[in-house]
């Protein structure tokens, strides 16, 4: 019979089972009636005729049974029987089932949760239309210390007009803007975009629309596109928001639309475009006429259909070469344009940590499965008698194999379903634990592909681990054949379990070593001197300043009032807090007259009030810091970092030297300032690397808004917050204060991803150790049971407690030694993949490897403790009597 009708008929039998039973009853009854009627017609008495008929048939139930056999088919029926048998066995051993299901659920849950993140961030395409065609374009200015530099307005037009393989290019630049008028003023992180930016991405608005070219025409009112967060928070999700007027930086502006709630700009991490922008506005309409040197645009291009990345790269590089020739302004250096897939670049920095976590949960799942396999083997051993009986009753190899496979798969199914529930909770916990810097994790969900992947993985393991106990079954068959009491001869299965548990210990060692390396990394990063001291400092920002009290006078007054508070050691203000998300500020500088501007090195700019350097503990190496006298009436002065000093004037004192800078970001360093001081380089962008040279301006000469205000406490910084708020209210009750947090919060934010990775690694290592200790316990406890009699005899012959413990410990030690040695070798191979995440510690750091050993030994000993106590408690008389 061909397969398809067979399946159809089988299915019909399943769903129509009841109908068929009824019909069969009817059919047989009709048969009995007819045969009986015939006998009656021949003169028999009705009831006797019926009895005789039934006797001839030989039992209706047997016939029904046989028909059912025919209907359902032997294989299916036996499978059902096996499933219900397996189900009964699992229910009869709740302890075992609970242990196995919990273990599996943990492994599957962790695996699924992490895979959902990996899937959302690394595998699933960006949430834009046809995202594979989107690329990021930057200028390579490596020689000026800026490998991935932004582009200028005219260059965006150059790309649009000269590149031939692209549908178009869009640009974005992040800044801040004050939203005022309708309620409390607030500063928003704003993305300034070209009008086609959103249509280029293929991202649409939830309410209203995104920008159109008409918004850019002269005379059009200002327009703003809101994020769903601002829309909800500030306008209560007003469905008629589109077309309403708001005030942005004091200018009337029309809300054109609201982006969907989940919308994020997924830009490369060093593009200085935060992915949690709160609103978008259009770039200056005059952008094409901006100076070519004024480079601040992050450019996204959409390749034409079918264009390869390599061809696109050549295309933009050619544009760079062409304009280098066309505009002498670029000088000798010229322009080098580079491009890379937007997706690959957007996840560049989280790829490492994510894949590491994914590897770790993979190992964890393996450990969990080994535990379950080991449990199954132990159970197969304890069911020796049952197996022996089944074998004696003629159960073939295939039948035993199927029985075990079904038990294993049933267990796996229950474990997997529980695991998916655990994964949901796990993902929620993960998202709750994730630092704001990793907010894009929230895109993760337990979706179809995620579930499919997890089930595929777990069922592969399920099949393997259901087969593991068969080794025990073969032994029973053998034992049965040569008639030895299999129950008392626990050899083969135990040997396999020993191998499994050693493997498990080895894998735990790998996770422990990995976690320790990440802990070391975290400690190393914490120990780095970033060049400033955030301790004891509270910071806040103001969304606006009093109308009558603008500019420098306000800053001076605020600084005086705050400094005078009790418990305050000093107050100051500066343009950027370390590691904050305020768009960066910087540009090229020239250290001597007539230097080539096209190859000018780049520096980060910061503006500081007097006293700020001292409050932040930035070390002054030479010269002086800023004073109140560095104001509009004095010549422009700057303080530079030692990195700049060493580059510009190696071996000479920089004090009194002149420096051309570009604080207004015109693209050309034309303003000359005098260096009055040299300070230690501050790692204000990344705690682990020095990024660029640094130039500090006096705030009294160059005020940049919004400022961050810092107040250093003599004691607990949190304690001064109320009096700081009081002081602000005294100055102006309407002052909108925001971002009130200790300065250390910014530092923690910068380390958050690293801390998160480390915490997860430690959690996984602890789970691995727990599972491994359960595994060790299982094997040792079982071997103690097997050697019950031996211990009894030894006790009877006068063996002391120490000797018995030594016997048990020897088993444990053998397991541990093998596992640890194999694990250290494995770790040496695997931690190589971690090298990108490590800081200040080698993947083969001997001390770290060595410190993993005692951890495992302690866990191993704890696992041996209970079995050892049981061994000690063996009563010699009982042990012998049980013979």
């Amino acid at each position: 019979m061909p397969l398809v009708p067979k399946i159809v008929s089988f299915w019909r039998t399943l769903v129509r089972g009841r109908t068929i039973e009824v019909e069969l009853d009817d059919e047989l009854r009709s048969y009995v009636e007819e045969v009986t009627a015939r006998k009656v017609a021949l003169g028999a008495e009705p009831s006797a005729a019926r009895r005789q008929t039934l006797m001839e048939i030989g039992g209706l139930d047997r016939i029904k049974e046989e028909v059912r056999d025919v209907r359902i088919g032997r294989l299916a029926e036996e499978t059902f029987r096996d499933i219900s048998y397996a189900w009964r066995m699992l229910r009869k051993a709740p302890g075992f089932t609970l242990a196995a299901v919990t273990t599996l659920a943990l492994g599957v849950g962790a695996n699924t949760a992490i895979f959902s993140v990996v899937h959302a961030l690394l595998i699933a395409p960006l949430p834009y239309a046809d995202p594979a065609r989107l690329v990021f374009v930057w200028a390579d200015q490596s020689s000026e210390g800026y490998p991935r530099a932004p582009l200028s307005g005219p260059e965006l037009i150059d790309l649009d007009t000269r590149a031939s393989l692209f549908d178009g290019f869009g640009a974005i630049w992040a800044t801040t803007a004050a939203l005022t008028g309708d309620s409390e003023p607030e500063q928003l992180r704003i993305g300034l975009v070209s009008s086609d930016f959103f249509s280029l991405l293929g991202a649409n608005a939830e309410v209203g629309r995104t920008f159109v070219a008409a918004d850019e025409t002269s005379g059009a009112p200002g327009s703003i596109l809101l994020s769903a967060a601002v829309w909800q928070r500030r306008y209560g999700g007003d469905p008629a928001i589109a077309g309403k007027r708001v005030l942005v930086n004091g200018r009337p502006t029309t809300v054109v639309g609201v982006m969907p709630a989940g919308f994020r700009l997924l830009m490369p991490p060093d593009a200085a475009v935060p992915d949690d922008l709160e609103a978008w506005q259009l770039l200056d309409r005059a952008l094409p006429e901006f100076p070519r040197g004024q480079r601040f645009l992050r450019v996204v291009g959409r390749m034409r259909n079918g264009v390869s990345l390599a061809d696109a790269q050549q295309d933009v590089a050619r544009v760079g070469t062409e304009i280098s020739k066309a505009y002498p302004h670029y000088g000798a250096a010229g322009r080098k344009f580079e491009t890379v897939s937007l997706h690959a670049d957007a996840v560049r920095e989280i790829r490492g940590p994510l894949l590491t976590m994914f590897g770790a949960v993979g190992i964890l799942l393996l450990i969990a499965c080994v535990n379950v396999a080991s449990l199954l083997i132990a159970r197969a051993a304890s069911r020796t008698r049952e197996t022996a009986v089944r074998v004696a009753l003629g159960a073939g190899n295939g039948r035993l194999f199927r029985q075990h496979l079904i038990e294993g798969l049933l267990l796996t199914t229950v474990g997997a379903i529980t695991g998916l529930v655990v994964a949901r909770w796990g993902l929620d916990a993960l998202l709750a634990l994730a630092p704001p810097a990793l907010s894009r994790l929230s895109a993760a969900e337990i979706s179809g592909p995620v579930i499919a992947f997890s089930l595929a993985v777990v069922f592969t393991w399920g099949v393997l681990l259901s087969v593991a106990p068969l080794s025990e079954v073969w032994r029973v068959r053998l034992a049965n054949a040569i008639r030895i009491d299999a129950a008392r001869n626990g050899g083969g299965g135990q040997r396999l379990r020993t191998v499994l548990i050693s493997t498990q210990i080895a894998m735990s060692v790998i996770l422990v070593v990995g976690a320790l390396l990440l802990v070391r990394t975290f400690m190393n990063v914490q120990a780095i001197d970033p060049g400033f001291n955030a301790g004891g400092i509270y910071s806040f920002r103001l969304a606006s300043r009093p109308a009558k009290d603008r500019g420098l006078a306000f800053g001076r007054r605020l600084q005086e009032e705050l400094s005078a508070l009790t418990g305050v050691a000093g107050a100051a203000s500066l343009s950027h807090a370390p590691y904050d998300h305020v768009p960066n500020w910087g540009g090229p500088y020239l250290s001597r007259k007539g230097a080539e501007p096209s190859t000018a090195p780049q520096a980060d700019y910061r503006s500081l009030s007097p006293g700020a350097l001292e409050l932040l503990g930035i070390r002054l190496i030479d010269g002086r810091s800023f004073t109140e006298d560095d104001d509009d009436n004095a010549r422009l002065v700057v303080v530079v970092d030692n990195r700049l000093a060493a580059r510009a004037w190696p071996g000479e004192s920089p004090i009194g030297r002149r420096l051309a800078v570009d604080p207004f970001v015109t693209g050309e360093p034309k303003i000359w300032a005098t260096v009055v001081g040299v300070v230690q380089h501050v790692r204000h962008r990344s705690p682990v690397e020095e990024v660029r040279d640094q130039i500090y301006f006096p705030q009294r000469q160059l005020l940049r808004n919004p400022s961050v205000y810092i107040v250093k406490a003599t004691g607990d910084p949190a304690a001064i917050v109320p009096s700081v708020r009081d002081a602000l209210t005294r100055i102006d009750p309407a002052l909108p204060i925001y971002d009130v947090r200790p300065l250390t919060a910014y530092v923690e934010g910068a380390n958050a991803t690293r801390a998160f990775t480390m915490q997860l690694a430690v959690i996984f290592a602890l789970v691995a150790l727990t599972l491994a200790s359960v595994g060790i316990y299982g094997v040792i406890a079982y071997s103690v049971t097997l050697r019950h009699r031996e211990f009894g005899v030894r006790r009877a012959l006068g063996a002391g407690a120490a000797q018995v413990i030594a016997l048990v410990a020897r088993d444990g030690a053998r397991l541990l030694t093998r596992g640890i040695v194999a694990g250290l070798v494995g770790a040496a191979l695997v931690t190589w993949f971690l090298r990108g995440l490590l800081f200040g510690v080698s993947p083969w750091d001997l001390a770290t490897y060595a410190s993993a050993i005692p951890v495992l030994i302690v866990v191993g000993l704890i696992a041996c403790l209970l079995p050892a106590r049981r061994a000690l408690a063996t009563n010699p008389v009982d042990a012998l009597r049980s013979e």
Partner: protein
Amino acid sequence: MAQPTEILKGTLGLLILRTLELEPRHGVGIADRIEQITRGTFNVKAGSLFPALHRLEQEGFIAGEWSVTEAGRRIRAYRLTPAGRQQLIAEKKQWARIVSAVGLVLESD
């Protein structure tokens, strides 16, 4: 009337198909017909008849339908399906081959 004989294993299906070749019949009808044609040699018992019927139906060679007799009794009558007709032809040929082969063996010296 001939001595009742055990039906050869595997031939009951063939006999049932043959019985249904001309017209649909129900269980008792099929058993009667086989007994009648073989002059009582084969007496088909319910215990082998019904499993065989359901196997043939399962395999798609016959199809059962409920109907009511003139006496008002509900019966399940089976008819040959096109697949069953082909199967009957194939099995007939097979049977002929077996008979001639067995005959050759028996008649050889």
